[in-house]
């Protein structure tokens, strides 16, 4: 995942939301698996990149 590649630690998808449900794009979102997500990441205390 890009966040890890950039040096973030503890990257974790915490929660998913069906944020397009009921919109005109619901079908497209279903087709491609588009969902809202909550993601946690932390910058390390020591940042040697």
């Amino acid at each position, binding site marked *: 995942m890009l966040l890890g590649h950039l040096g973030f630690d503890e990257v974790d998808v915490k929660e998913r*939301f069906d944020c397009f449900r009921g919109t*005109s*794009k619901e079908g497209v979102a279903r087709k*491609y698996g588009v*969902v809202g*997500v*909550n993601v*946690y990441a932390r*910058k390390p205390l020591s940042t040697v990149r």
Partner: protein
Amino acid sequence: MAHTCPVDLDTLRLRAEIESIYRRVATEPSGDFHFHRGPTYAAEMLDYDAGALARLPADSTASFAGVANPHRIAPMTAGATVVDIGCGAGMDLMLAAEAVGPGGRAIGVDMTEAMAGRARTAAKSRGLDNVEVRLGDAMSLPVDSESVDVVISNGVLNLTPDKEQAFGEVFRILKPGGQFLYGDIVVATELSESIRRNIDLWTG
């Protein structure tokens, strides 16, 4: 997985389209859009605290167009400095300002003057003296390096043409040990070049 836009995507047109759409969300939030807006959506579909939203200025919450809920990821500690990338009309920004309290700071960054103006007005109306809104771009944040404890963002960074640059900016401004509470959309399947080249699908 692709992290940058196709080489022939017109990023200037993409930026103009994004500005146009979110200017309209700021001024006509009840208009016709492909995404939900407003506090009822936020409470019912994204698990925001309906009571907390009811205490915020309606002009701000009506223009909320996030896709997740950064406030559920981790608590923000009193006294912390928080940056909200793409703060829009200020709903998440004001919730962050209330969480960190008067000893903390909440700095909103938005590329759309109409949204930034709404956020400033809303924070003033709510009496939040610890809020500052800066006009700026996620690709080059107007924030000093290693100066903030928490970065939040909600439904914004997916619109940037170069994710590595945008996330690199988040990394740059966070203090060591700082937290990134990130809400956005993800796609479960790799998209074709033709889809990724279609600005209408980027913006709606």
